């Protein structure tokens, strides 16, 4: 299972890439592998506020709908518009073109609460 070293992880299987005070968020390789065949992504709305640990998006695979939880709090400043026409990007490139949204963090300290790559690997039993 691919778990990049430069990211932080939530127990609910989202990843965060910190770029200054902005967090880029997506789902992990493990998550996309468990869901298989993503067919629809309901992104949060730009300018909406998300709260760490609260559901803020939905990823639908052929078999089920899965809630996505915001790993950090803040205002959504961008969503990945590509996903509307190509939801399979979550399967094909979960850490790259399959990013879901960007948050301007209101409390960057929340990032420290997230799991390190090693801790996430342990969490999923990898």
């Amino acid at each position, binding site marked *: 299972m691919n778990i990049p070293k430069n990211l932080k992880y939530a127990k609910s299987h989202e990843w965060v890439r910190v770029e200054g005070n902005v967090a880029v968020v997506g789902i992990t390789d493990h998550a996309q592998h468990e869901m298989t065949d993503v067919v629809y992504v309901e992104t949060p709305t730009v300018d909406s506020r998300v709260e760490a640990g609260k559901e803020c998006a939905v990823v639908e695979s052929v*078999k089920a*709908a899965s809630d996505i939880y915001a790993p950090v709090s803040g205002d959504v400043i961008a969503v990945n518009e590509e996903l509307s026409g190509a939801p399979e990007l979550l399967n094909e490139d979960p850490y790259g073109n399959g990013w879901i949204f960007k948050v301007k963090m209101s409390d960057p300290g929340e990032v420290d609460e997230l799991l390190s790559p090693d801790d996430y690997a342990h969490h999923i039993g990898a």
Partner: protein
Amino acid sequence: MHGTASLKRTPLYAAHVGRGAKMVSFGGWEMPACYTGIIDEHTAVRARVGLFDISHMGEFLVAGPNAEATLNVLLTNDLCKTSVGQGQYTLLCNDTGGIIDDLIAYRVEPSVFLLVVNAANIEKDFTWMNVRTTKSIVLDNLSDQMAAVALQGPAATNVLPEAQGIPHFGIARLGILSQQCWVARTGYTGEDGFEIVCDAGDARTLWSALLERGQPFGIKPCGLGARDTLRLEMGYPLHGNDITEATTPLEAGLNKFVSFDKGDFIGRATLSGQRTAGVKRKLVAFKMTDKSPPPRPHYLIYVGDRTVGEITSGTQSPSLGTGVGLGYVEAGVAHAGTAIEIEIRGRRFPAVVEQKPLLKRNI
């Protein structure tokens, strides 16, 4: 993750896990959901051929001079219309016409019938049939001794050429690789193919041999995920979702499997009444007409501001690239072409009632 300790396993369990299948709980069984991916497996069946483990399904043997007459009281279709080597889709109903199970009954000898029933209903069906049988018959539950696989797809006859003479809904006793099996030209995918019932002890050999034989034709082992998307594209109901004891064959649009021109059968009074008066709700197939999340069971169906029904099965159709499903709606709107809306997480998305099958096939 829920516990799987109490779930039953088929003789092919180790073969599935060995191939890296994702296992799920279904009808009390631990079954493969998929191996490589639902869409991948779905496509293999539509374009080439796939192999499913259906050993969780139940097999009953009903035999004796009274077998036909007894089954004609228990089941809604008319077994007198079958000759030896023919099967028939039929329904087991309760006294008020509610569907206890849907099944295929095969006449394998003049007075011997093989019934293939749904996994979750094996005990319930068997008990009901025992209690409601008034004449002396042999009624045997062979489910634990038997295994079954479904070979489905346009290349199924390439993989099993010895079975190509079996007609649609026919059944024959065939030796496959020295194993004696019941081979029926049936399935739950809308493709040509076979359902093969064998002794549980022969299942692993048969499974491996069919996969090996199918390799030149691009065969894939397939899980319940693809089984569900394939059957939904055809509009085939799933017992427990689309048909239950709270719904009748007439509401489910299964009228042609209810034979009113035979003698009395369990549920007849209610079903006759519905036939005369009409039903209040009907099971319809629909497809989403705009980009939307996939429809799922229990989402509400609207016409204008009015709730007219509820989804019982739904998914994203890999072949059509859009959401599809089945649901009960008021009879007044149950016509192909009716514009409906599906409410998904508080938003409405447009859909249209469609004729079954949703995916047109040539078989």
